[in-house]
């Protein structure tokens, strides 16, 4: 047992791998924890995990409905993954520059609404309509973000307060217009937008099954790498991190802090806007009035789980989305309420927040081992240690 722990500590303490090994440990621990909960409930955890994978298209189900297959599930997983990654990226950009953008939901909603209103009901050619939707999404979200940044810079209004308020304003404002002008008589939701504007190709036949192919996933992965490049390599990204790290020192360095506040929140909002159009004009093609998507809030948790790094956001989105998409199927096979997906998200977050502590424990253990080795097993070192003790005695008494 002790040997196993020591080995584990030596792996975790290795600086080259700790950005991978620590999250993996956290995830494993949460899986163990979740399994225990399922066992206590009298369910089979392995079956549950398998069902999550089946539900999100990573494992074949026993049987499929007419025209569907594993690929159908996989593409529908990717469909919801895309807005999740983009929303998490939006949060990451704000967070690195020192802001807590809770307004992602509102920015998503305004972007999705405007794109649907302007392009969704037009009969533009798809080649023009789709890029237009993306541009409108980024602009709408970006402008809202810029407004938050402006309030922060000019009047020192905390972004958490302003974004929460704006979320409500957007929710009710779009709700008013949808109910008044764009409401579908039967569903009471927004009238569905045309296929020309939708960022998902629906009902495409691949390998004999129907699939909804999301364009957004390409956008999301590309965006993650662009964000990574900006923060890792560019002067601008360095300055954003500087503003996020210490605003006073950023000013001292000569960075135009106000400008950077506005720009960072604009980018954050623009990414949220992209998440909005991939969600409302891709994954869905309608908007339920006066409802903010929970995805905009889940994205915050996802971003933090991914250690607020852009690439981490991809992996974290992946993991969380598996549980969220797979929860329906899991609930039908295992018989556990699908809300357990939220519980799992919570447990994952809890353990990933302990990452720093695991690192510390591993480091301390390695040093204890080093100590014992120094004194006991190495005769040469022992002699040196003894001698230095004697010398010290002389100093004290002499």
């Amino acid at each position, binding site marked *: 047992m002790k040997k196993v722990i020591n080995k584990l500590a030596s792996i975790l303490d290795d600086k080259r791998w700790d950005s991978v090994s620590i999250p993996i440990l956290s995830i494993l621990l949460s899986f163990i924890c979740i399994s225990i909960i399922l066992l206590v409930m009298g369910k089979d955890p392995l079956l549950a995990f398998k069902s999550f994978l089946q539900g999100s298209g990573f494992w074949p189900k026993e049987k499929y409905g007419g025209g569907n297959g594993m690929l159908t599930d996989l593409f529908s997983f990717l469909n919801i993954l895309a807005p999740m990654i983009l929303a998490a990226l939006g949060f990451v950009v704000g967070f690195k520059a020192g802001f807590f953008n809770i307004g992602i939901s509102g920015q998503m909603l305004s972007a999705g609404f405007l794109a649907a209103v302007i392009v969704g009901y037009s009969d533009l050619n798809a080649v023009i309509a789709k890029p237009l939707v993306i541009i409108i999404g980024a602009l709408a979200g970006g402008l809202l973000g810029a407004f938050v940044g402006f309030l922060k810079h000019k009047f020192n209004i905390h972004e958490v307060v302003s974004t929460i308020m704006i979320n409500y304003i957007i929710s009710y404002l779009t709700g008013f217009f949808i109910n008044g002008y764009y409401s579908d008589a039967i569903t009471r939701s927004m009238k569905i937008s045309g296929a020309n504007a939708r960022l998902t190709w629906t009902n495409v036949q691949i390998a004999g099954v129907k699939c909804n192919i999301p364009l957004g996933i390409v956008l999301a992965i590309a965006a993650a790498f662009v964000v990574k490049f900006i923060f890792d390599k560019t*002067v601008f990204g360095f300055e954003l991190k500087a503003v996020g*790290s210490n605003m*006073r020192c950023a000013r001292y360095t*000569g960075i*135009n802090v106000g400008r950077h506040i506005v720009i960072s929140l604009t980018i954050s909002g623009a990414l949220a806007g992209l998440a909005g159009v991939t969600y409302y004009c891709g994954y869905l093609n309608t908007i339920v009035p006066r409802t903010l998507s929970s995805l905009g809030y889940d994205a915050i948790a996802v971003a933090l789980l991914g250690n607020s790094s852009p690439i981490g956001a991809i992996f974290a989105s992946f993991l969380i989305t598996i549980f969220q998409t797979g929860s329906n199927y899991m609930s039908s096979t295992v018989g556990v309420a699908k809300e357990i997906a939220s519980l799992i998200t919570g447990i994952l977050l809890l353990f990933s927040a302990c990452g720093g502590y695991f690192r510390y424990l591993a480091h*301390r253990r390695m040093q*204890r081992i080093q*100590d014992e080795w120094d004194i006991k097993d190495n005769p040469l070192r022992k002699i040196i240690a003894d001698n230095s003790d004697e010398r010290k005695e002389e*100093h*004290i008494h002499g």
Partner: protein
Amino acid sequence: MEDYIVEMRNITKRFPGIVANDDVTIQVKRSEVFALLGENGAGKSTLMSILFGLYEPDKGEIYIRGNKVRFRSSNDATAHNIGMVHQHFKLVDNYTVAENIVLGIEPMNRALGILPYVDIKTANREISLLSQKYGLEVNPTDKIEDLPVSVRQRVEILKMLYREADILIFDEPTAVLTPQEIEFLLKIIDEMRKSGKTIILITHKIEEIKKIADRCAILHRGKLVAVLDVESTSSQDMANMMVGRMVEFAAVKQPPRYRETVLEVEHLSVRNANKFEVVKDVSFKIRGGEIFAIAGVAGNGQGEIADAITGMIQPHSGTIKLCGKDISGLSIRQRVEAGLSYIPEDRQGTGLFLDFNLDQNLCLRKYYKKPFANQHILNFSELESYAGILIDKYDIRSAQGIKTSLRSMSGGNQQKAIIAREIEEHAKLIIFVQPTRGLDIGAIEYIHKQILAEREKGVAILLISLELDEIMNLADTIGVLYNGEFLKIADASTMTSHDVGRYMMGVKGQ
């Protein structure tokens, strides 16, 4: 066997990348003043934090009054009558003095025999008595936020005494005090010793140890160098042992060779957020090769003058000329590029990004320019090699070289990093604000040498300091600031430290 009240045997404590205490053994006798002397980062505070139960040692044993103890928290230490005054006070700002002192062990009473409440009246009375007994004057009903630093320190001391501590640890108690307040504190410590308390004093100021301590342990880079009898050891020896080499106390200064005027400040006024004039119509000039020092008690407008010149705040009126060019309208970056360097007072809050690595912090003035950046893309190998050169040239010590997080570095080395970065700008004017505050003599000696070397090169230097000694040692011209105005600007050779001290207190004219 002597009667030791505190024994710490073979204490080892590690932090990531650093051994803070390496097999340290100290023994403290009953009712003595035992000093711990060492540079910043020598491990004094860590050792005492272990004794106070804030850290557990990786190795080693602690004996209190001959009994082996293991402290898991500071509550355990308090139960053994150990008290500690931290360098940064731990007080609740919007509570009263009495509330802070009794916090955690409040005298309780029951209203109507059932409802428990804090009996603040008893507490106030007890604290008045206690403060009279030790000559530590406080008003129990004052709120902490309204009190000056020296009184807050008294509150901290009373907090220990109220908990009946008889082993009192002071972590750098004089760092925040004025000379008069230091005198007073040392007197209090002396009286507490006479009344039978044992005092452990962490400090890097040798003159204080000379004044008050009986014995002194010297730490150097985590290791115990020696335990000395203070009376029979010279200050010079102590300083050498503490730094680990020979130390020169006073810097050698060449006669001044002034050049043309570099900085011209005319009728500068600065108002604070409440529209109150904190700098009033100040005018002065600094020539190349001249050290112009602003002396004054803290909070008389010194910081605002520096901030106004560097562009950190907007002055209300007045002009600032650098080499004849008006820079009042320029941005901070434009001023830096016009030839101005700034070592700010708050080195951790303003001068550095504590979460960034050393190499990035060393390049804060350059990162956006060629060859460090090309078409807005950073060139990391250039940044790193430049940082490496600075680390060698200025002897900046850190655990992991250029990739050390600034947070983990000692105060002295943090300051060295700022000074290296600013001097390497080869500016025409360098502003040093409190460049040696909180640093040990090794670092002070080093920084004074750097300042004088820049003067030799013909750089104009504005030095703002609260340390009178520093000003007297370095300045060519002294301006004494009182209430936002210069009471006196004169050649340093025409004034004694006594004169300067008088102007600092606001005494005008002869």
